[in-house]
């Protein structure tokens, strides 16, 4: 069972879920999970491998359907307002979504344009993630960490309120992690929220980070 379900009393709930139950491969990952995420929250989903962190994030993003339960964006079911929800959502999964055949800049430009953001600032955004000088390099020539940086670069441009990030720090160096954490803090202060999974300890002040712990269930 999740040890500490987050139930905040703040009225301005951005993303909430009630009664979530998830079953994968005939194994119950979590049941009757309630989550309430308000503007300004940074939520870290914790748990051992196979506990259902990714499943939870995918359900919150609307990519997977839960066995039972509903996800709400601003108190309205996300399946009833797909376009509105997606405009306010930035989800980055395990896979960076970077095409090998395109250059770093083309990848970022496409990602920005696809999500309705200004793609002209791609070059300056790449500078934020230390990819200056690699704009015209094909992604197939870049490292795993650099692929992730291309995907993460979208965070600097994003106007979405809800960031759902699955292991955003994978293959990112220490300095990069620090910079990302500051960005999360800034995003939360500006009225957004961040939901992330990571096995690293966040260096953010403990009062700012809320934790959801999923336990591995053996039955």
């Amino acid at each position, binding site marked *: 069972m999740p040890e500490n379900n987050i139930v905040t009393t703040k009225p301005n709930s951005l993303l909430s879920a009630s009664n979530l139950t998830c079953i994968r491969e005939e194994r119950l990952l979590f049941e009757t999970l309630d989550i309430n995420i308000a503007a300004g929250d940074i939520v870290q989903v914790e748990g051992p491998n196979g506990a259902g962190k990714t499943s939870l994030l995918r359900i919150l*993003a*609307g*990519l*997977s*359907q839960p066995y039972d339960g509903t996800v709400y964006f601003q108190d309205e079911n996300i399946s009833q307002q797909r*376009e509105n929800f*997606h*405009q306010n*959502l930035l*989800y980055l*999964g*395990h*896979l*960076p*979504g*970077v*095409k*090998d*055949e*395109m250059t770093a800049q*083309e990848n970022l430009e*496409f*990602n920005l*344009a*696809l*999500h*309705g*953001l*200004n793609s002209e600032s791609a070059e300056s955004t790449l500078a934020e993630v230390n990819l200056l000088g690699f704009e015209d390099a*094909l992604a197939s020539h870049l490292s795993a960490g650099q692929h992730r940086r291309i995907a993460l670069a979208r965070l600097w441009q994003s*106007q979405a309120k809800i960031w759902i990030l699955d292991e955003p720090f994978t293959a990112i160096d220490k300095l990069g992690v620090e910079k990302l954490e500051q960005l999360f803090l800034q995003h939360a202060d500006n009225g957004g929220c961040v939901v992330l999974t990571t096995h690293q300890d966040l260096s953010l002040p403990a009062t700012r980070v809320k934790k959801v712990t999923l336990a591995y269930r053996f039955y």
Partner: protein
Amino acid sequence: MTQLSYRAAFSLIVKRDLMIAFRHRDDIINPLLFFIIVVTLFPLGVGPESTTLSRIAPGIIWVAALLSTLLSLDRLFKSDHADGSLEQMLLSPHPVFILVLAKIVAHWLLTGLPLILIAPLLAVLLHLHESSYGALMLTLLLGTPVLSLLGAIGVALTVGIKKGGVLLSLLVLPLYIPVLIFATSAIDTAAMNLPYNGQLAIIAAIFFASLTLAPFAVSAALKVSTN
């Protein structure tokens, strides 16, 4: 936030898919090469007698077109699914219908269109009846988009499966059969100097039905596959 119009989103995806294909030319050349090889092998196997060849030419060209499209279908969603860009597309604020249609159009431009361009040349090799050329071009023009549209449904359903190749053929080939039957029948009828409007009208009907309905089926299938 600058919201992209449907048309802008459509052309964004088409441009991206074409760019990726041109940087990865194997994907364009392989199906086309397969088409040419199959068609050129037939006269060697059957013999150069023009009456036999012209009798079987419509069938050969259409079966080869069908198989070469099947060969190229994997590219439609497989790599996007493998590297996570499909998820990002599904999560974009645009209707999935538009994105799916754009991907199918790009696929047709890269596989169907080259087949149409090369087909008259290969028809000469097979001694296709002179009066059949118009019918051949028209059926290919209406029929190859159907192959891309219906094939997309099969790919979307099997994209999450590691080895979905056989399953894809089993799913898609039966759906291709009506197009094959009416297209070859139209070309045969044209060879006899008879009107082939009827067959053409049926292929056109299949085309418009799949153009309007297939993207919905593909969207639904992709949502299931990424679940």
